[in-house]
C-alpha cells in the first residue's frame, strides 16, 4: 500500500504512553497507514490503544541525543482535545515516527481515509447508507402533502452543487421557477423546507443569501417562491444571521438581502451569528483557557469571557428561540439564511427544530435531524473540521459550527433533562467523530462529493451504527420522557453553563 512510503519505522519497543486518567504504561508502538497502535506488553487484559492518525491535530517533538541517552518525546494533541505523550527510546526512531505521523495525519485524499477501510463485522455495506432520504422523510409527513412537494430539480446537482438531489418546496412552484430562483441565490441554494409545524401550519425554510448585488437586482421567481410559502397568511419572517450592516456590505460583493419592497409580507430581522475564523479562534481560546495551568479563577473567567464562546452559544440559542417563537407563538413562517447558507443557517434551523419538535428530540430523531440539516444539507464538514483547536496550520475554512451546535444542544439537554431522548455521551461522541471517524458520515463537503467519491457505497454510516441495540442503550437518556411541548431554553447567562468537555483532560469517553 502506498502508505508504506510514509512509514520509515513501523515498530518501536519500550515506548511509554502517558495520557490523562491513566498510569503511564510501557509497550510497543506501531504505526500503520491510519492508526497509531500501542500495545501493552504486560498483556494484562487491556486492549491495544488505538488512535486514528486523522485525529491528530498537532504534534510536538523533542529529542535528546547524548552518548549516554538517545531518546525523544512526542506530544500528540488530538482534535478531540485529548493530549497524549509518547516517550520513545532512540532519537532516530522518534524522529521517524514523528515524521510518519505528520505526513499520514495530513493526507487529504478522501478515498484513502480510514472509513474506506473500516469493515466491522456488525455492519454490511449492503445496508442503506444514511437513515432516511428526502423522499422517505416527505412520505412520512402526510400533513404536508397538499401544500408541498418533493422536487428532483437538483437530481444531477446542477442547480445547486451543495444541495441534495431532492428537496421539499411549495406545491405551486414548478421546477423551472426553482431553477431561476436558484440562480438568484448564492451557491444555488434556493429556499427549501426544513420544518413544518403541524399546529400552526407554518414552516421553517432555509436558503443562502439572494444575489441582489449593488444594483438591487430582483428575481421574480424567487419572490414567487417566497410568496407561495406564506400564501394566505399575511406575514413571514426572514431571520438573517448577519447584522444588517453585514448584509448591506454583502451587496458590494454581489450578495444581499430581501428588500421590503420586493418581498411583500416578509419582515426581515437581523441576528448576527459569528462563523468562520471568528468562531474557530473562539474555540482555540476556549480550549487554551481550559488548559490554563495557573489555577487562578480570575484568569479562567477572564479567558473564558475573552474567548466569547458562551456568547456564541447564547446568540445561537436566542436566535433559534426567536425562530421558534415566530412559528409557534405567532404562527408565522420563517426563512433563515446568512450568506452561504451552509453554516449558521443550519445551526439556527436545527436548534429551532429541537425546541419545537418532539420527534427531533429522540435519539433516532436527533440523528435524523443531523442527517437532514447538516449532512444532506451540505455543511462542508471536511473544510470546517480539517483542524481543531491545537493546530498551528494557517486556518483556511475551519470553523467549529457543528461543535457549537453540540454545545447548544448540551445546554438544552441540561435545562430540560427529561426532554431529550439522548444523553451527553452521544454529544461527546459526535464531537469526536466529526473530526476523525471510522465512518464515512462526516466525510466530504456535500452530497455530491459523497456520491463522486463513493462514500455511500464504500463506507459505513455512523448514524446507522449508533442506532444498533447496544449503542442505542449507551446513548439513550434513561430519564427521557417525551413531551409534546416546545422547550424554551433560558438564555440568561447564568443558565448557560461552561462544560469541561473542552478541557484537554476531559473524562475519557468510556468514563462519561
Amino acid at each position, binding site marked *: 500500500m502506498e502508505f508504506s512510503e510514509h512509514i520509515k519505522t513501523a515498530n518501536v519497543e519500550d515506548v511509554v504512553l502517558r495520557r490523562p486518567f491513566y498510569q503511564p504504561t510501557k509497550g510497543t508502538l506501531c504505526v500503520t497507514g491510519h492508526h497509531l497502535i500501542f500495545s501493552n506488553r504486560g498483556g494484562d487484559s487491556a486492549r491495544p490503544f488505538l488512535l486514528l492518525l486523522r485525529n491528530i491535530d498537532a504534534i510536538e517533538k523533542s529529542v535528546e541525543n547524548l552518548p549516554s541517552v538517545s531518546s525523544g518525546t512526542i506530544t500528540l494533541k488530538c482534535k478531540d482535545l485529548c493530549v497524549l505523550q509518547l516517550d520513545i527510546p532512540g532519537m532516530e526512531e522518534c524522529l521517524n515516527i514523528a515524521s510518519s505521523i505528520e505526513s499520514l495525519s495530513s493526507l487529504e485524499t478522501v478515498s484513502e481515509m480510514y472509513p474506506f477501510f473500516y469493515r466491522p463485522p456488525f455492519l454490511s455495506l449492503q445496508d442503506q447508507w444514511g437513515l432516511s432520504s428526502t423522499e422517505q422523510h416527505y412520505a412520512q409527513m402526510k400533513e404536508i402533502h397538499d401544500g408541498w412537494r418533493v422536487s428532483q430539480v437538483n437530481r444531477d446537482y446542477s442547480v445547486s452543487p451543495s444541495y441534495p438531489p431532492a428537496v421539499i418546496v411549495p406545491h405551486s412552484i414548478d421546477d423551472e421557477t426553482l431553477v431561476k430562483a436558484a440562480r438568484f441565490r448564492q451557491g444555488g441554494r434556493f429556499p427549501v423546507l426544513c420544518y413544518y409545524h403541524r399546529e400552526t401550519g407554518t414552516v421553517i425554510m432555509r436558503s443562502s443569501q439572494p444575489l441582489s448585488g449593488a444594483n438591487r437586482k430582483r428575481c421574480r421567481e424567487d419572490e414567487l417562491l417566497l410568496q407561495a410559502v406564506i400564501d394566505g397568511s399575511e406575514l413571514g*419572517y426572514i431571520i438573517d444571521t448577519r*447584522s*444588517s450592516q453585514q448584509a448591506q456590505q454583502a451587496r458590494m460583493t454581489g450578495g444581499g438581502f430581501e428588500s421590503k419592497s420586493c418581498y411583500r409580507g416578509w*419582515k*426581515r*430581522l*437581523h*441576528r*448576527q451569528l459569528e462563523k468562520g475564523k471568528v468562531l474557530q479562534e473562539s474555540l482555540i481560546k476556549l480550549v487554551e*483557557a*481550559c488548559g490554563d495551568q495557573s*489555577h*487562578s*479563577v*480570575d484568569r*479562567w*473567567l*477572564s479567558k*473564558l*469571557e475573552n474567548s*466569547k464562546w*458562551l*456568547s456564541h*452559544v*447564547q*446568540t445561537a440559542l*436566542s*436566535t433559534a*428561540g*426567536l425562530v*421558534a*417563537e*415566530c412559528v*409557534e*407563538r*405567532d404562527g408565522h413562517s420563517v426563512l433563515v439564511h446568512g450568506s452561504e447558507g451552509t453554516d449558521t443557517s443550519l445551526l439556527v434551523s436545527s436548534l429551532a427544530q429541537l425546541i419545537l419538535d418532539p420527534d427531533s428530540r429522540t435519539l433516532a430523531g436527533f440523528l435524523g435531524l443531523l442527517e437532514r440539516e447538516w449532512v444532506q444539507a451540505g455543511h462542508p464538514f471536511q473544510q470546517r473540521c480539517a483542524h481543531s483547536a491545537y493546530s498551528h496550520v494557517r486556518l483556511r475554512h475551519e470553523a467549529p459550527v457543528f461543535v457549537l451546535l453540540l454545545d447548544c444542544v448540551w445546554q438544552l439537554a441540561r*435545562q*430540560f*433533562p*427529561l*426532554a431529550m431522548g439522548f444523553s451527553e455521551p452521544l454529544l461527546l461522541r459526535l464531537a469526536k467523530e466529526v473530526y476523525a471517524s471510522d465512518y464515512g458520515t462526516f466525510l466530504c463537503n456535500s452530497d455530491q462529493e459523497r456520491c463522486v467519491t463513493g462514500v455511500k457505497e464504500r463506507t459505513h454510516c455512523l448514524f446507522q451504527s449508533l442506532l444498533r441495540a447496544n449503542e442505542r442503550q449507551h446513548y439513550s437518556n434513561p*430519564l427521557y*420522557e417525551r*413531551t409534546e*411541548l*416546545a*422547550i*424554551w*431554553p*433560558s*438564555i*440568561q*447567562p*447564568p*443558565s*448557560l*453553563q*461552561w462544560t*469541561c468537555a473542552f*478541557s484537554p483532560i476531559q473524562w475519557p469517553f468510556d468514563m462519561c
Partner: protein
Amino acid sequence: MMEHIRTPKVENVRLIDRTVSRKATVGTLYLSATHTIFVENNPETRKETWVLHSLVASVERPPTTPSGSHLVIRTKNFQVLELLVPQERDATDIHASLARLSRPEKYSELYCLSINPTANKEEREESWSFLDLQADYRRMGVPNNLWVGTPANSEYRVCDTYPSELFVPKSATPPVIVGSSKFRSRGRFPVLTYFHQDTLASICRCSQPLSGFSARSQEDEQMMQAIMKANPGSEYIYVVDTRPKLNAMANRAAGKGYENEDHYTNIKLQFIGIENIHVMRNSQQKIIDIKTPSMGDFLWGLESSGWLKHIKAVLDAGVFIAKAVAEEGVSVVVHCSDGWDRTAQACSLASVLLDPYYRTMKGLMLLIERDWVSFGHKFSHRYNHLDGDPKEVSPVIDQFVECVWQLSEQFPCAFEFNERFLIQLRRHVYSCQYGNFLGNSQKERRDMRLRERTYSLWPQLWKDRAQYVNPLYRADHTQTQGMLRPNTTPYCFKMWKGMYNRLEKSAPPRHSPADLLTAVREETQQLEQELTNHQEVAPRGTAHSGTKQGIQTPKSKMKRPGRPAPSTGDGSVDSPPHDYRSTQRGPPDPAMTLPLGPPKGSDPDDLSSACSDIESGVIDLSSRSSSGGDDCKDPESDEAIYCPAWSGTRGPDTGRLPC
C-alpha cells in the same frame, strides 16, 4: 412588635411580576408581627405570598409614580418582591413599619423568642436533645488514650467563646492549657475538632498567637508539642494559617501574628490566603448585583466579584488539611485571626472531605453544631440578627454551604442530602425561626436560656427529610467511601444558580432528574410494600394471582411516577418563551422589531431586572397553575406557606412553620 405596625392592611396593592409579561396581580397586603403577606384578590386562587420579616434584607421606595408608590422588598434569600401601593401614605407607613420590623433591636423581638415558643415543654426539650455532640466525638473514638476531655473551660472560665466541653492532648496539663490560652487571641487555645481514626492524625483549631515580633510562650509551645505527640509516629505538625501571609504579618504589628517556626519545634507553617470578612461581604454583594443581559457582562461581573475565587480558596484550605490528615497522617492545627470564621470554614470542610458521615444529613447537622455553633462562630453578628454593626456582617457560613454544594456537583452520589437541604439550612441561619443560631457563643445561648425558650431546628429538618434526600446517594459507592479528592481546577467551580438565581422566573421551574428519581423511588417502595401486603394477605393457594394483581394495579400509576399534571412534564409548559428579541447586539432597528407579543419597556436593562425576579415560591404560582394545588407544596417555596390565620401561635411542632 405590633406597635410598629401603622397600617396592618392595605387593599388594591399590585404585586408586580417582572418576568412573566410584567403582569401584576391585585390583592391585599397585610402586615403581621412576623410576616408581610400578600393575598391575591382572584377568588379562584386566593394565592398568598408570605415573607418573613427577619428575612428582609432591604426595603426600597423608588420615586412615586402617577399609578402609585412602589415598594421593593429584597430578602436575604436573594428574592425580590415588588409592590405597587395606590396611596402614598400607605406606602410610607409600610415602608417605615418594615424598616423597623426587619431590624429587630432585641433578641426578644426575634421570631423564635416572640412567638409563644414554650407551648410544649416536652417536645421542646426533646428537640434540643436530637443531636448529641459528645456522641459524635465518641463516634470518632474520642476520648481515647491520646485525647481526653478537659474541665478547664467549665463555666467558660478560660475562654468564653469556646464550648465548656473540650478535648486536648492527654499530656496537656491545666497550666499548659491556661498558659497557651493566655498566648492566644481571645483565649482560644488549640483544641481538638476532628480525630481521624485510621491515621491517628487530628485537626485542632485555635486563634492566632499573640506573638507580635518576638513574644513567645512556653506553654503554647508545649501545647503544640503535645498535639504532635498525640499522633504517634508523626514527626511534625502543620500549622495552617488560613489568612493571606501579608495579613498575618500585618497582625504582628498589633502584637498578634503567627507562629515563629524557630520557637516551635517541628511545625510546618502553611498560609492559605482566604480573605477576611470584609472582602467576602463585598464580594457577595457584587455577585448579587451582577447584571446579566450579556454573557460578557455576566462573566466579567463574576470575575470581578471574586466570589468563585474565594470559594476555591476555602475549598483549597479544606483539601490541604484533609490531605495532610488522610494521606500524610500528619496532624493539623488551623487558625486565622480569631479562629471563628475562616477556621470554622476550613475545619468543617476538611471534615466533610475526610469523613463520609458528614456527608449525610445528620452528619452535616452535627458538623455545623460542632465547628460553627459550639466553637463560637458569631452567628448573630455575621448574619445581622439584630440591628448592629454592618461591618460585622459577612457570608461566612454561606461560603461553607456553597463549598459543600460545589462538592456535591462533583460527587453526585456522595451526599445524602440535596441542594434544597443546603439552601434551607442557610435560610435558617438567617431567619431566626429556631433558637439554634441565636447569639455568638455557647455561653450567650446559655445565658439567654434558649433551650427553655425556643425550639431546635434539627428535628424539624429531619422530619422533613423526605424532601431533602438526594436520590443518587449511594452509601456503598466507591465515590462515597473515604476521602473525597475534588478537582479544584478553576473551571470546576460554577455559579450556584439555585442559590443566587433562584429568581430567574422566566426559566420556568424545571423538573430535575433528582426529583424524578425520588418520585420513582417512592413509588417503587410503595409498590414493594403493596406487594408484601398482598403476599401476606393472600392465602397460599392464591398467592400467585394475588401477587400479579398487586403488581398490575399500581402499574398504571407508574407511568407518571408521582409527578404533577402532564402539562408540567418538564416545566416548559405555561411559561412564555424567553424574550429572545431583546438580546440583539447594537441598537435595534425599530423597523425590524417584531410588533408582536407583550409590550416591553425601552430600558435596555430590562433583561436584568427581568431575571432579578422572584422564585416561584414567593410570587406568582399561577404560571404553573396547571399542576393545581400542588404548587403550594413546592418545598422551594419557603415563603408560600398557606395558613388561614397568621396571627396564630402554632409552634414548629405542627410541621409547618408558624405564621
